[in-house]
């Protein structure tokens, strides 16, 4: 494990991404304890600009709520939804891809047509329809975004499984009479996983952006503060108080950049290891 960390540290992009992401996660986790304010509480004079009042460093919105507190709570929603949807997408995609690639024949054909169907419907449209039907809640949003993102992992896992199932150790497992399901999930799947995991950062980043767009259109979780919702709230005051929409947007950009850089550094560190082995 140690060489992996050393290789990761040697890539400046990866380190920058890790630091950015770490500071955001720390802010999301520790922020509520430090700020101790309620993001929904009306605490100050409305529309204070940023840096004008020391007790409201990023100003207040049209209702007099503290922008910094809301920004911190918003990062929780963004990061939670981003990572949770990626887990859903990776788990569903890897399972479907493994079954399709390992079973072959009609099962493979049927599952891949379903993958095709999910791929030709815009993921955002699917999420929009799913959330509008099932009602906006954190779990529904995670599922909705995951539903639009599992096809990439499924294709990649299937391709990996197709090559792995021809290898000697799989043949050996068959010869000793292992059950096909056991071979698929204990021998083949773990070996098909690493390339699929290289997709994680792209999926998390896309999920963060989709969540933001959903809540911008008013389909976010109504019980939590979201960056997309903050941008939507600030939109009507674009002329008089542009900072209300700009600040949460900068939060989004830095989160997504952090996720990309971290992911790129990780993939680089992992692939060098793969080449040496």
């Amino acid at each position, binding site marked *: 494990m140690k060489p992996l960390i050393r290789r990761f540290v040697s890539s400046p992009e990866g380190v920058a991404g890790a630091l950015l992401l770490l500071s955001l996660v720390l802010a999301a986790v520790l922020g509520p304890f430090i700020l101790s304010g309620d993001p929904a509480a009306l605490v100050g004079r409305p529309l204070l600009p940023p840096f004008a009042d020391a007790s409201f460093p990023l100003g207040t919105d049209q209702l007099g709520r503290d922008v910094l507190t809301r920004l911190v709570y918003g990062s929780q929603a963004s990061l939670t939804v981003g990572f949770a949807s990626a887990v859903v997408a990776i788990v569903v995609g890897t399972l479907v891809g493994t079954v399709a690639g390992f079973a072959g024949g009609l099962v493979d054909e049927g599952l891949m047509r379903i993958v095709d169907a999910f791929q030709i419907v815009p993921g955002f449209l699917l999420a929009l*329809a799913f959330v509008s039907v099932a009602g906006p809640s954190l779990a529904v949003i995670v599922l909705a975004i995951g539903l639009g993102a599992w096809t990439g992992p499924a294709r990649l896992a299937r391709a990996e499984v197709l090559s792995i199932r021809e290898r000697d150790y799989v043949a050996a497992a068959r010869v000793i009479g292992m059950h096909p399901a056991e071979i698929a999930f204990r021998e083949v799947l773990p070996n098909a996983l690493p390339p699929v995991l290289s997709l994680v950062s792209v999926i998390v980043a896309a999920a963060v952006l989709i969540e933001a767009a959903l809540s911008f259109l008013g389909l976010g979780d109504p019980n939590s503060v979201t960056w997309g919702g903050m941008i939507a709230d600030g939109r009507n005051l674009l002329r008089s108080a542009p900072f209300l929409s700009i600040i949460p947007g900068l939060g989004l*950009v830095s989160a997504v950049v952090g996720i990309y850089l971290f992911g790129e550094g990780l993939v680089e560190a992992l692939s060098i290891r793969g080449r040496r082995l």
Partner: protein
Amino acid sequence: MHRAWRLTKRRLVASIPVLAIVILGTFLLMELAPGDAVDAYLVSLGGGDSRLADDLRQSYGLDQSALSRLWLYVSSLARLDLGWSIVFNRPILDIVLERLPNTLWLMGAATALAFTLGSLLGILAGAWPGSALDRVLSIGSLTLYAVPGFWLGLVLILVFSVQLRWLPTSGIETIASGKVGIARALDIARHLVLPVASLGFIYLALFLRMMRAGMGEVWRQDFVLAAKAKGLSRRRIVVHHVARNALLPLVTMLGLQAATMLGGSVVIESVFAIPGFGRLAQEAVAGRDAPLLMAVIIVSAVLVIIVNLLVDIAYAWLDPRVGSSEAASR
């Protein structure tokens, strides 16, 4: 063009089962929704008694079983009847046909911008790997790739419409301007500048990064070494040998990105109040118009199939190896 025709036929046949799954899935999704079209209609009327609801359900066939309603839906789709919109109180096909051109212009222009500018900047970055220009473009494109399109739209409105007053903030053309011909086309173009930039910039970053990565791979190939050994100028090697071979994967990407771009236009059209096809999805959700939402999903799938088919044909035309091996084996 016998090869392209065969490719088209094969792709269209293959897309029939996929489209069938999309239709079935959309139908099932709408079955999950609490309430039906009659409930939504009664809400829009401001309420009604249960007799009226029952009568309406009977006349629309909503009292029948799910299976017979699915059959009814599929057979009307086959007649190109997309149903009746609750929000607009008009046939959905008419609305879709009316809205589609705006979205196609938006997507077409955004794709053209992203592809040309993205591949050009990608060539610049990939021509001198590791140079200062390469680093700047790499960091810039990564940041751009992380910018949500709807937020970029708001920032662009703030700069170019509110501060500089160069461009209009919203809409597809000046209302009741009485402009015709070229003047109207220019007016629409002016309205499309900001939406196209908001929608296209993320793909610009994507194409830039793909071009750069693709060129990095081609640089290592033997034929580039051979070109260097022949003493060709760097410019000639970059343009004729490296960039040209790195361009093909970008064409494939055009097809893969069609679906996400259509999804992106939903939000961008809402930000800029463009009466397009994408905005229809948001209007359907806001108005609880299930038939309209189903139609938008199915038409989107058909659009993506068509775009992918066009990309495949273009690819086959650019790369003579595609499909010809099959012809030889037959």
